[in-house]
């Protein structure tokens, strides 16, 4: 194996519990996004666009869709003779019981042997479930310039929200003096993006230390970074400017999709110099019918639109019948929407069928995002006001209506 200067480790084992049914059959990084992508496409594309061609993807939770999506990394140009992308599930070692990954740092610890094959100087640790475009090679340059043991990418967040993030208090030279997880009285508004570059021998030492501590939760943010700070390692904050979003909840996932729809979005998907790669479905150009009316929206291949689409994201192969109106919504692949349907502020799961004259919109008093399970059929004339996880919910929903 030829030496690689920097190896990327993508944490992709998260169950993404707060995404509810969206992550029932797939890990969070596999959740569809932006009409065509899955969340992990952003970090994988960042790697290849940054010239980092050796990556390990740590999986654990419902990995089948993720595995078949990533394959050998061809879409991201990560199928390499040396390096490329490797999927790293938990495994059994000789004479031992299998160990699941117990925390982010433990996941890396269990794959030290994988990293060592490349004999790298640096390791980039990133989450496979954030949406952003970032040139890691610039961060690596910064890390080298500073002679850091660890560099953590940070982004300015509004002061009012700083208490929701891990906040870095830094010196003038960018060195990290203190790290506070969700501080009630933040001293700073530089939030950690969960993007770390470590000098590998240093990280390795701390991974072993952490592993020897039975009380540790083996998490980078909670254990490794505080321990390094305590022992006076050289930690630096790398300031990032641009779009960055953790799409950990239904609301933030919906928002991040809507963010794409402004005329000049902060996250530009059309930049040919920083492509976001993904698996390409092979479907015909979408068909805009004579009565179609679409604006402020993104529409992918294979759709047939006969109705009105306003401020929405449509994935592959969606059908929207005549007289239907879709607003502020995300419609995933192969959803069939009949005629005269109204949908507002909803996320419709893959392969759902919504028959004619349905209304899917929450009450004004209760503006939650409605989530509709995939592969479900909503019968004609249904009125859906809240999230539908199974056909039984629909029943309940309907009874509530008739009671009302």
């Amino acid at each position, binding site marked *: 194996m030829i030496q690689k200067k920097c190896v990327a480790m993508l944490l992709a084992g998260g169950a993404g519990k707060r995404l509810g049914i969206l992550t029932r059959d797939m890990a969070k990084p596999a959740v569809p996004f932006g009409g065509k992508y899955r969340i992990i496409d952003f970090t994988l594309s960042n790697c290849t666009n940054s010239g980092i061609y050796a990556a390990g993807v740590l999986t654990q939770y419902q990995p089948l869709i993720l595995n078949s999506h990533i394959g050998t990394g061809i879409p991201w140009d990560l199928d390499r003779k040396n390096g490329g992308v490797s999927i790293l599930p938990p495994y059994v070692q000789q004479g031992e019981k299998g160990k699941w990954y117990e925390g982010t740092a433990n996941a890396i610890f269990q794959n030290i042997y994988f990293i060592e094959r490349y004999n790298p100087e640096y390791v980039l640790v990133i989450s496979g479930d954030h949406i952003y475009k970032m040139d890691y090679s610039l961060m690596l340059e910064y890390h080298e310039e500073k002679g850091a043991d660890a560099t953590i990418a940070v982004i300015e967040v509004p002061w009012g929200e700083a208490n929701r993030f891990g906040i870095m208090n830094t010196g003038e030279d960018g060195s990290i003096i203190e790290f506070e997880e969700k501080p009630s009285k933040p001293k700073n508004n530089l939030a950690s993006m969960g993007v770390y570059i470590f000098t590998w021998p240093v990280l390795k030492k701390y991974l072993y230390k952490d592993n020897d501590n039975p009380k540790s939760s083996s998490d980078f943010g909670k254990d490794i970074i505080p321990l390094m700070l305590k022992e006076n390692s050289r930690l630096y904050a790398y300031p990032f400017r641009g779009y960055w979003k953790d799409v950990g909840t239904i609301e933030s996932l919906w928002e991040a999709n809507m963010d794409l729809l402004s005329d000049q979005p902060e996250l530009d998907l*059309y930049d040919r110099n920083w492509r976001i790669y993904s698996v390409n479905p092979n479907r015909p150009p979408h*068909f805009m*019918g004579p009565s179609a009316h679409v604006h402020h929206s993104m529409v992918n291949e294979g759709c047939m639109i006969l109705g009105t689409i306003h401020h929405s994201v449509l994935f592959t192969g969606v059908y929207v019948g005549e007289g239907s109106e879709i607003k502020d919504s995300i419609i995933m692949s192969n959803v069939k929407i009949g005629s005269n349907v109204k949908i507002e502020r909803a996320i419709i799961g893959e392969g759902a069928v919504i028959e004619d004259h349905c209304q899917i919109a929450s009450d004004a008093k209760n503006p939650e995002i409605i989530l509709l399970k995939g592969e479900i059929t909503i019968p004609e004339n249904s009125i859906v006001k809240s999230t539908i996880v199974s056909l039984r919910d629909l029943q309940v929903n309907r009874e509530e209506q008739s009671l009302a």
Partner: protein
Amino acid sequence: MKNVMGIINVSRRDELLKDLTSLRCIASVPFGGRYRLIDFVLSGMVNSGIYNVGVFTLNKYRSLMDHLGFGKEWDLNRKRDGLFILPPPIHYPFGYYRGDLQNFFSHIDYFHRSTQEYVIITGSNIVCNINFNEAFQAHQESGADITVLYKEIAEQEEKNFEQCRRIVTGDDGQVLDMEDKPGRLKSNKVLMEMFIMKKSLFIEIIENSNKMEYSNLIRDGLIQNVNRLNIFGFHYAGYLGIINSVKNFYKHSMDLLKREVWQELFYKPGLIYTKVKDEPPTKYLEQARVTNSLISNGCLIEGRVENSILSRGVKVHRGACITNSIVMQRNEIGKNARIENTILDKEALVSEGKELIGTPGQPLLMGKKSIT
């Protein structure tokens, strides 16, 4: 269909499509927004379970090679069989090219080496979504030496098939007559240039022709043998276009804007595969107004589009208006420009306020990378 190999014969008559084929062969002419003409027969073969396909090319095939690659998109990147692109092995002595049979003969090894018992030979400019299984079954049941596919066309379609050969069949389906040059036969049966026969017979035709210095598969291999061999016709009922003029290229393109044609041609019985590109979904901005159109991925639309086909990565700026037109890959249409009844080849640039106006009967054709 494991026992059938597919042959796609890229015709040389590419002058018919004028500027569209000045830099590419007819097989790689863009069609339907994101496809090339060859995608239709090639996908048909793959969807029928044919896994050995030879594409015989003659010239200007760089873009075709680039498009087909190693056949990955058609699942033909196989270790055994798969996709073979077969250009003339040695340049013909000073332009002396006698016809397709000569080209087949120069690759006769390929036929001998292939393990399949039957061949299906097709042209490369046939727009249809076909599963060959039915025709193949009919071929086996009829006991015919050769089965030719044809389509009966309605009177109002005549204009789209002016340049196509016609055949006459008997009640039992036997082919009684087949014309070499269009015009002789008064028949509504259009020859699709798709033939099924045993590979051994195909090799025999090729080798005989070579001895006799004959050169053209249809003229010398088939028409001359109408009485000697048992040739049957098989009627294909699906949507059909045989692209052999700019006019019928335009007409068949516009057909795609009929909802039922779109649904049949791209989805039934199988999908049409093509080279994929990393384009994001198309984005419709505030001012977009798009109706009755086919829009490929990666477009950014701020203007109006009506009854038109946009290929991948087209930018339509504010106030621009595109009607009854075909706009190929990566065109940029400036503010307030007006495009009507026009075919814009790839990567052209239409400046602000510019007007390009053709007529439905005589669409305007703008060459690749033109700047207006």
